[in-house]
Structure formats: structure tokens, C-alpha cells
């Protein structure tokens, strides 16, 4: 018991020095630590939004969007595929009703070829051999494609990944801010922007799916039919809030001339003639050529600029637009034009996102919380240490040193691991101070007991540490179980609390059992006391 091997002593001391060193930057102002040489630790404990202020948004994706879009895309693919088939397969009555794509094959002899072609349009999902669409024949003339569960799940998953990236690009176009954008669960995205107070601009930026399309206006449509919302075949009626005739609607061709996917750049600018805010866009090579061709073929005809299925404007093509650049005008302010430019640059959101949870925390409250949290730590810790010293004397002093080391090492580990300190986390720290004491109390009480039973001093010490350790282990395990569940099922700030508890449990075992024992034994060997001051 007395002979701690030398390497063990050094190992313990090295661990302590490392733990304390990692915590050091937290005690200096940030400006000072920035100038430190690079071999010194510089990481600080990251503070949660509730301590530094900022906005927290939980966005919910409308997964129904994904299903609808898949149906529309598949319908388009089926048309193309049947047209391209050799010999061409004549189909009719294509519908996307009831969540399935179905169509009629005019020539019954071609049904097998049609089925084969449509099967070719589906993709395998995962390793089970399942495909993303199930193809069946109904009434021997109709081919029905049903989206499979696995296929839909995969599509939703991919859409969410894309959406997460788009959101990240929109919030932080230059990748410089400390915003975090994470996927949460199957259909949610968590956005945290430190320092941001007014989340309205943020939500406006995220509310747009920014699906930009250019389509030709259908000039043959009967105005009365359009006003009633009915479109001729091959066309569709879209809302047009700023329409010159005041009808609020316009008929456009279904076929897309060019889409926002073919953009390489979008910038806010001003129109040279009337100084109105506009968005200047530039197409990539392919998009530019397509735009040039369509404008050449349709000079003096109007086309519609459509954002998220709403027509912004429908200018006339005065001359062919060959350079691959264009200007979007609408009823913009410089701010809304800039937001649209950002949205266009970052790509379109594959799903509609709605905010289901929003928390905004002012910076003053956070600063106040930190201040009062630190005061609570100091007072609580001070009281506990006074009490320990009064109860166990010298042994209480040993426990107090261990306690201080414990708190510092927790900060050190959190700094290096990047574990966020939240407001409940501060409570966790205070609680850890109280609970870490338990190990020392168990040991000291046991030593007292062993002495009362008449054991020799050294025996009493080693028994005290040994017998108390099973109780300490079991007691800590119950805390770990609670903390792990808290982490697994909790959200944001609660997780911060759980992390502090878990780190605290491990470090307190080290400081309260190992470090204290080292101190006690060193003291015993140096002084060879005849009675224990306990």
C-alpha cells in the first residue's frame, strides 16, 4: 500500500499536469490566448447558445414534397423513355394520381416491352435486391409504378442531405461564421447561429425553396379559361401577383426552357434604366446555349420567370440573349433581391422546410448566467470545502485539493474535446462538486471505522481505500446509467448537462481515489504519524 511504484507516481502527476494545462486558456481573456505560441493549448470550453446568445431553429422537412416530386420526375422519364423506345411505344392517359404513376399502353402487344422499359427506370435500393419502384400490369393494358417504402426513404434521406447543405450555404455563404447546421432524426435540420438576435431574416432565407425556372408564356390560352384556372394541354396556370392585366394568373408552357440548376452565379444589382433592384444571373455553358437557342426562336414573344411556382415577371424577348447572362426583375427591394441572389447561388431546397421549434437567447442574459453560475460554483465549492475541512481535518484538505483538481480537469477535458458548456451544464458542474465529495467521504468514514475497530494505522488506511472502492464503483455506475440515458434521449442543453456529469464521474474517480491515495501515502511515508488526524 505504501509503495506506490515510481512510474505510477509520475503517470498520475503527468495526467494531472496535462489536465490542468488544457484548462488554462479558460482563465485568460480570449485576446491573450490568441498570441500564445502554437505548442501551448489554446482551446476554450465552447459555450452553448444559452450562454452566449443566438438563435436556434429546428426545421421540419415536408417529406410529402419528395414523394410528389418523384412522381412528377418519373412521369417525365416514362414519357421520354417510351418515345425513345425502338419501335416507339405509344402510351396514353399518364396519371400520377393516388401516389402512383400509371399509363395506358395503346398496343397490347407492346405491354411487355413497356414493362421492361419502366423496370429499367427503377434503381436497386440497399443490399436486399429491392428496387425503388415496383412495376405491375393492371387490366393487361395499364402499367402501374408504385414507389416502394425503401425507395422513398432513400429519396427523403438524400433530399435531407441536400437540404442540409443548401441551408448551410445560405446561412453562411463564406463558411466564416460559427453557425452549425445538423441533420436531426429522419426529417429535421437543426440550425444554430450564435450571436444572431433576430431570426426573422434567417427564416426568410430558409423559407424559400428557390426553384427558379424560365418558361415560355402560352399565348394561345383563352384568357377566360386562364382566369378560371384551366390551362390548355401542355400548359399550366400559375399565380402572377404583379400581372399587368390585374388577373393574377398566367398560362405558361409546361416545358422548362432553362432552370436554376444551370446557374453559375447570381448577384444583386440595379436596373440601369429605372434603378430598380434586380438579380443578375449567369448560366453555365449548357444553360447559356439553351437560353440562347430558345430566345432566338421566340423573339418578340414573352417568357415567364418563375420562382417557387410563382411568376415574378413575364418580359418580352426583345432580342436573342446570347451571352448566357440575364436579369431577373420583379417587385424587389435591395434586401429581398440580395436574399434571392443568395438562395439562387446556394441551390434550390429539395423540400419545403417549416420551423417547428425556435429559441432566441439574448447575449445579456447569457453573460449574466455565466456570472451567476461562476458565483454559485465558488460559493457552493467554498461551502463544501469548508465542511470537508471541518469534518476530516488534514484528510479533508487532501479531499479539497482533489476536488479543485477535479473541477479544473473537467474544464480541461471539455476544452480539448469541444464539449459544449450549457446553462444546465453549469448546474451539472456544481452538482459534480457535491457528488465528487462522496468518494472521499466514503474513504474517510471507512478509515475512521477501521481505526475504531482497532486496526493499525497503515492497515486502516489501506482497508479504507480498498473497502470503499466497491461502493464507489457501484454508486458511480448508477450515475453513469442516468447520464447516458440523458444524453441519448435529451436535446441540446440537456445533453450539455449529461456530458458534464459523465466527464465529472470519470475524473472524480481519478482525483478522489487515485490522487487522494497518492497524497495520503506520500504524507504517511514522510511523517510516519503515530495517530491519524481523522
Amino acid at each position: 500500500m505504501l509503495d506506490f511504484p515510481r512510474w505510477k507516481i509520475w503517470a498520475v502527476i503527468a495526467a494531472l499536469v496535462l489536465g490542468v494545462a488544457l484548462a488554462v486558456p479558460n482563465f485568460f481573456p480570449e485576446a491573450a490566448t490568441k498570441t500564445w505560441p502554437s505548442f501551448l493549448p489554446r482551446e476554450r470550453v465552447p459555450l452553448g447558445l444559452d450562454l452566449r446568445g443566438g438563435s436556434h431553429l429546428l426545421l421540419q422537412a415536408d417529406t410529402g414534397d419528395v414523394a410528389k416530386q418523384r412522381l412528377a420526375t418519373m412521369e417525365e422519364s416514362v414519357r421520354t423513355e417510351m418515345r425513345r423506345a425502338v419501335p416507339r411505344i405509344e402510351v396514353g392517359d399518364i396519371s400520377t394520381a393516388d401516389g402512383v404513376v400509371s399509363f395506358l399502353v395503346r398496343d397490347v402487344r407492346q405491354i411487355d416491352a413497356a414493362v421492361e422499359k419502366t423496370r429499367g427506370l427503377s434503381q436497386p435500393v440497399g443490399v436486399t435486391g429491392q428496387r425503388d419502384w415496383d412495376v405491375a400490369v393492371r387490366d393487361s393494358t395499364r402499367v402501374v409504378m408504385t414507389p416502394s417504402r425503401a425507395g422513398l426513404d432513400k429519396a427523403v434521406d438524400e433530399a435531407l442531405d441536400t437540404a442540409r447543405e443548401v441551408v448551410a450555404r445560405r446561412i453562411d455563404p463564406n463558411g466564416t461564421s460559427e453557425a452549425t447546421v445538423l441533420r436531426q432524426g429522419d426529417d429535421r435540420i437543426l440550425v444554430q447561429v450564435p450571436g444572431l438576435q433576430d431570426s426573422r431574416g434567417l427564416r426568410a432565407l430558409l423559407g424559400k425553396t428557390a426553384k427558379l425556372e424560365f418558361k415560355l408564356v402560352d399565348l394561345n390560352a383563352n384568357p377566360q379559361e386562364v382566369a378560371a384556372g384551366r390551362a390548355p394541354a401542355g400548359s399550366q396556370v400559375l399565380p402572377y401577383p404583379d400581372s399587368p392585366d390585374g388577373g393574377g394568373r398566367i398560362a405558361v408552357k409546361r416545358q422548362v426552357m432553362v432552370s436554376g440548376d444551370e446557374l453559375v452565379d447570381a448577384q444583386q444589382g440595379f436596373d440601369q434604366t429605372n434603378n430598380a433592384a434586380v438579380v443578375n444571373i449567369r448560366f453555365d455553358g449548357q444553360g447559356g446555349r439553351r437560353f440562347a437557342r430558345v430566345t432566338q426562336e421566340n423573339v418578340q414573344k414573352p417568357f415567364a420567370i418563375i420562382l417557387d411556382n410563382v411568376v415574378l415577371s413575364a418580359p418580352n424577348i426583345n432580342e436573342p440573349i446570347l451571352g448566357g447572362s440575364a436579369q431577373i426583375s420583379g417587385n424587389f427591394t435591395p434586401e429581398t433581391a440580395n436574399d434571392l441572389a443568395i438562395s439562387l447561388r446556394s441551390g434550390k431546397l429539395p423540400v419545403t422546410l417549416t420551423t417547428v421549434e425556435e429559441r432566441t437567447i439574448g447575449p445579456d442574459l447569457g453573460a449574466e448566467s455565466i456570472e451567476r453560475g461562476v458565483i454559485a460554483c465558488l460559493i457552493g465549492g467554498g461551502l463544501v470545502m469548508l465542511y470537508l475541512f471541518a469534518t476530516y481535518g488534514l484528510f479533508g484538505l487532501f479531499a479539497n485539493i482533489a476536488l479543485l483538481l477535479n473541477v479544473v480537469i473537467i474544464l480541461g477535458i471539455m476544452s480539448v474535446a469541444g464539449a459544449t458548456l450549457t446553462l444546465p451544464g453549469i448546474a451539472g458542474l456544481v452538482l459534480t462538486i457535491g457528488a465528487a465529495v462522496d468518494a472521499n467521504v466514503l474513504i474517510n468514514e471507512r478509515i475512521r471505522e477501521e481505526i475504531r475497530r482497532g486496526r493499525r494505522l497503515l492497515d486502516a488506511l489501506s482497508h479504507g481505500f480498498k473497502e470503499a472502492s466497491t461502493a464507489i464503483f457501484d454508486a458511480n455506475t448508477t450515475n453513469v446509467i442516468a447520464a447516458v440515458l440523458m444524453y441519448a434521449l435529451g436535446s441540446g442543453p440537456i445533453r450539455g448537462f449529461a456530458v458534464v456529469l459523465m466527464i465529472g464521474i470519470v475524473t472524480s474517480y481519478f482525483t478522489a481515489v487515485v490522487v487522494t491515495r497518492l497524497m495520503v501515502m506520500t504524507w504517511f511515508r514522510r511523517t510516519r504519524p503515530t495517530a491519524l488526524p481523522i
Partner: protein
Amino acid sequence: MRLLKLVPDNTNINFLRWRWFAIAVSTILVAASIFFLATKGLNFGVDFVGGQLQRVTLVKVVPLDTVRDRLNALGQGEASVQTFGSERELAIRLPLPEGADEAAASAAADRVRGVIRALDPQARFDTVETVSGKVSGELLRTGGLSLLLAMLGIATYIWFRFEWQFGVGALVSLAHDMIIVLGFFAATQIDFSLNVVAALLTLIGFSLNDTVVVYDRVRENLRKYRKMEIEPLLNLSVNETLARTVATNTAVFLAVIALVVVGPDVIDGLSIGILAGVIIGTYSSIYVARFLLVPLGVGPDSFLPKDAIADAERVKRRET
């Protein structure tokens, strides 16, 4: 130096004699808690029922009723206005209509701000939290689930480490603590938020901490004193660990009381929850967890190593 000893050496309190008193106290507390839970119910915060919560720090004191009347005049549903910490710190809760979108929620927040600004132009707006019904329902479910899992998980761990009677004893004492603390929250109508669930989880870990230490001692004594009756043995174990129970809980109590008194007001629910839990947990680990072992049938034969029993039989056979 004379050391402080809250529990004198060789304390021998006959806890067993007070057992019926403890049973009465527990029964009354649990019954009262269930009564409050049934009649008043928990005052669920926006985390669990959805809605909007704003925290405001006023510069001048405005009577709560004035704030409440002005807010209700907005016609946005029944506003709940409470102070927390000091009388200048307000927590304002508004229900959100079913299916309200983001724009409606932020418009509601603006109108509340307008009312507060009119009453105190220098008011500071600290937090706005808007939680939709969908998310709050999930938070409530996972919160409840995590409490249940924590209780079962810890009871199972104790069953493996000790014997099943100890696991059952732990589970019952946990349920006892949990009901009483929930009853406390129902009676005081303190805002029941996610933080309180964290407090309850901590309490589950902590309350068991005490119980485990005592069980550990009971096991040790069961092995040491084979001939002793179970009841005096439990009494002995309680007395032997009493100094430790008191010392640890005093330390935790001191730390938590500092948190309640000077700590950030926003987490008062968390701090007060832990404080209530510490008090109940100390009591229950002395009475509920330990003396439950008697009716559950822990006796001198528990924890006998299996091979020792085999040995004993062999000896017996040789004798006959």
C-alpha cells in the same frame, strides 16, 4: 483540532423502531403527491405543451396583473405571466393556435414586445422560445421514456450486482422518490420544463447512489455476521453508513443550495428539483430502500457463495 462530527462515533439509533412512523410518512407523502398530480397536475412548460415563452427583464416594477390584462387584451388567448428570480424578471407564456405558422408566431412575439415596451420602454428581451405542438409532444414522450428507462436500467444493474430483492427495493424506492418530487412540482406549480426532466434523471442516479452504498454494506455484513437476524443486521448497516450518508448529503446540499440561491434564475426549476430530490433521496435510502429488504425475503442465506453451500452439504454428509 477537534473535528466536526455530525454523527457521533458508535451511533446506534434503532431505526427499526421508527419503521411504522416512516411507513406512515411515506404513505402520506405519496398520497398527497398523487392527490396534487391528479387535481392540480404538472404545470407543463412550452417544451411539453407547445406555445411561446418570452423572458423579459424590466427596469421598473410593473404589477403582474397589469401586464396580464394588457396581454389578454391582445386577444391571443390566455397569457400566463409569472416572475422568476426577482419581480422584474417575467416569464410570459402564450398558447399558439393550432397549425400556426412561423409568421404568425413571430407576429405574436412582436405584439407581446409592443405591450411590454409600452409599459417599460427600457425592458430587455432575453429569450423567445416557440415550440410547435408536434415537437412538444415528442419531447414529452422521450422525456417520460428516459425517466422510465433510467429507473429500469438502474434497478436491473442493482439486480445483477446484488440479488433481485435489492433490485426491487431500489425500483420501489426510486418510484417513491419520483412520485414525491413530481407531487412537489404539482403542488408548487413550478414550470415543468426539459430542465426539470434532467433534474429528475440526475436525482435517479443520485438517490440510487445512496442506496447502493447501503446495500453494499448490507451485503458485507450479511457475509460477515452469518448468525445475525436480518432486522438487527439492517439496523447495524444503517448505523454504520449513517455518518457517510449524512456527510455526503450535507456536501451535496450545500452545493445545490448555493445554486438555488445565487445561481442563474433561468435554471431554478433544475436546481429546485435537485434540491427536493436530495432531501427525499436521503430519507428514502435510509427507510424505503433498506427496510423493504425484509418483506422481500433477504435473509442470512443471501450472498452465500454457491460453492460454499456445496461444501457445507459435503461436510454434512460426512457427519451422518
